[in-house]
């Protein structure tokens, strides 16, 4: 991805390290308390993951060498940075360099136009482990498309891969030719073929796109998937509030204005959204040995990417160059657009330590589906919006991970670093 500048990443890591060291100086007891409270999988979980080779395992008073779980070493490839991916939204106006995009009008209909190509690439999914992926625009997950409800999403898709591919959108789509499946419209596109899909952006929420060629399992698991975020249109919310709330009682002005405010907060074209730190996380996994079971699990492709770089299991840790926590401002609301793209496992999940959040299943409603939970479950292609508030938390590391402990120990395990 052209937008990945490793100098920037390196500088960011350095800043992060310095700020962290500054933040934690003289607070070693608090630090340990925080880490001590993170205990997943007993002692090993408390130990956290580490740089392995550099972790000599000399902890617990030097009486034992129990070892730490976690991937050894750092990522070497610079094609993809999961930290950058978190915040990359392609709106047509603005986005990644590797996504050709524009916005234009057809009468009074706004069109957001994107170009996506299927390409075969090698990606690094755990330090030192590469995977032959099929991707949209050379990245897994594919570029995140972000539009406003009611727009037309125009995707010119060109297949540059070795196999035949499609794009199937999870939106309400009234034209079967645009469904992106082998039997309708253009069917599968062979190598070198192009087709322009047009989908109406509806309903609002966090939606999903993926290849629907056969064998389906393989085309999805190899990496052909991505996220479409359809922001609610506050004007439309004002006119049709009942479409955005799972509620049959009287629709007061107060309630309508609440919904409109929420819609504004979720719409990238309104300033209200700036108080919120918005992130995209795609839960995925990779079957590296073709046994129908994933060897690597992750949020955004790289195992342990949002973990700490190295730890001695006693609260003394350092961010790595390529494995580091997601640094967030505790005073901002954290909004995670979460999509489950896992293959071979029936469900996946998201669990926050020391905090509870509101969950909007599919994000199609403007009121929470679940209020105040710390764990949600998603089956494959299920998605939702999480709103997490750390405003009353002390600075430090707060773990989040799949609460299938197997997935967590195989890579889907991360930290927010609240500053």
């Amino acid at each position, binding site marked *: 991805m052209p937008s990945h500048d490793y100098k920037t990443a390196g500088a960011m890591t350095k800043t992060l390290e310095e700020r962290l060291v500054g933040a934690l100086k003289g607070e070693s007891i608090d630090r340990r308390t925080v880490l001590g409270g993170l205990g997943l*999988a007993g002692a*090993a979980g408390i130990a956290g*993951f*580490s*740089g*392995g*080779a550099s*972790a000599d*395992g000399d902890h617990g008073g030097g009486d*034992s*060498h*129990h*070892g*730490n*779980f*976690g*991937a*050894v*070493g750092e990522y070497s490839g610079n094609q993809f940075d999961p930290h950058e991916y978190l915040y990359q939204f392609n709106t047509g106006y603005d986005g990644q360099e590797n996504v050709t995009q524009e916005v234009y009008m057809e009468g009074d209909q706004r069109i957001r136009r994107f170009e996506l190509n299927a390409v075969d690439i090698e990606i690094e*999914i*755990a*330090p*030192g*482990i*590469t*995977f032959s992926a099929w991707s949209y625009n050379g990245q897994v997950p594919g570029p995140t498309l972000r539009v406003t409800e009611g727009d037309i999403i125009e995707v010119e898709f060109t297949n540059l891969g070795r196999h035949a591919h499609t794009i199937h959108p999870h939106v309400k789509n009234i034209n079967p030719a645009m469904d992106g499946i082998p039997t309708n419209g253009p069917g599968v596109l062979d190598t070198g073929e192009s087709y322009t899909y047009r989908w109406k952006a509806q309903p609002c929420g966090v939606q999903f796109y993926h290849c629907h060629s056969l064998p389906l399992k393989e085309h999805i698991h190899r990496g052909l998937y991505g996220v479409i975020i359809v922001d609610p249109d506050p004007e439309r919310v004002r006119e049709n509030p009942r479409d955005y709330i799972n509620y049959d009682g009287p629709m007061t002005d107060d309630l309508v204005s609440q919904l409109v405010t929420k819609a504004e907060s979720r719409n990238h074209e309104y300033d209200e959204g700036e108080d919120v730190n918005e992130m995209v996380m795609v839960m995925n996994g*990779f079957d*590296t*040995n073709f*046994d129908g079971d994933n*060897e*690597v699990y992750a949020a955004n492709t790289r*195992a*342990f990417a949002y973990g700490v770089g190295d730890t001695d299991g006693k609260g003394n840790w350092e961010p790595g160059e390529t494995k580091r926590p997601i640094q967030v401002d505790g005073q901002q609301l954290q909004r995670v657009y979460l999509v489950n793209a896992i293959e071979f496992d029936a469900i996946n999940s998201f669990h926050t330590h020391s905090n509870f959040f509101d969950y909007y299943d599919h994000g199609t409603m403007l009121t929470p589906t679940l209020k105040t939970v710390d764990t949600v479950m998603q089956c494959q292609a299920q998605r939702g919006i999480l709103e997490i508030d750390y405003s009353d938390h002390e600075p430090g590391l707060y773990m989040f991970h799949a609460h299938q402990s*197997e997935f967590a*120990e*195989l*890579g889907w395990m991360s930290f927010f670093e609240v500053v």
Partner: protein
Amino acid sequence: MARSDGGTNTVNKPFGLPRWVAAILPIALLALVIAGFFVATPFAGLQGSGAPLPDVTVTHHTIPNDDTIVLHVVNNGPEDVTISQVLVGDAYWNHQVMQGGEEVRTIGARESAQVVIPYHWNPGWDLETALVLNDGTTIHHTIVAPEQSPGVSGDVLWTLAIIGLFVGVIPVALGMLWFPFMQSMSDRALHAILAFSVGILVFLAFDAGFEAFEIAEQVPGAFEGQLLVVLGILGALLIVQAVTKWKSSGTGTPSGLWIAYMVALGIGLHNLAEGLAIGSAFAIGRVSLGAFLVVGFMLHNVTEGPAVVAPVTRGSRPSLGHFMAMGALAGIPVIFGGWIGSFAFSPTLGALFLAIGVGAILQVVWEIGGLISRNGQLGSSLNLLGFLAGLVVMYATDLLVVL
């Protein structure tokens, strides 16, 4: 035969060339062809881009202490292999890949390495480990009921020597005490006893042969375990046979004493493998050789005594020194096997030793058959029953020794 070729003698000067040139010529031409093959790469068009698949074997593991597991790894393939990550119980775990005291990630072709994993294991709880290579290939290795490996110490050497003494030397010596009784037997009865010992040896050959092929499956791919066993069996058979022929070239038939030594050697090689099994069980922490097992081995091996001395029951009695030498030859290898097995065990070595034992035993079977048929009838009903009895006794005592 010399053939005339228009008056030219083609034997001493084929095509008019000196003999040594004619001998070397095909080799030189072959070298040229091979060199040409590498230069021209005539099959390049047939080759896909498919690189050779990585071929890595975890030969065995050792558990030096409470908090460490060591996997012994061999790269069988022609290409380098990079071990990127290690899974223990389906979780990524930290580790070091060590080669000759240095930390590495990549293992060269045909090289071996140790993967050292700090892990607080539970005695008796199976551990699933897996090496994850850089291309995502997984190499699985299950540690069944982990127990700490004893490591090298005087205690261990001494313990293994004692076990070897009880399992190998004493039973064989006890078995040899049947010698005076066997001397008093009639020819018919003695032949039956010889047939009985053939039964014992044939059974041992099968026993060790199956074991060898079983171990051969763990032999790293590059060493072709199965074929190594075949080579070991045939090689030992042919070498012992050649030595026997050379030794008996004067008289035409090998002496009874010679056969007895050969029997002792064959049994000794078999017992060496037995010792390897005990020692390697020790090495991987399987120290469950209780008194019962030792008793089982003793009963099993006591039948080997008469097999050794049967060939010398006619004619003049050999000196006591010969008996002691034969007993030592047959029994002491258990101790050496135990030592080798506990400190330098490898499946390759284990399979090879077993195969050599089988080859030696088969040759001895052949000799004893010859001994009987020179003095009597090999296929008499009594002999056949004796042979069968040998098989049955071995099977029965083998039941006591399921290692």
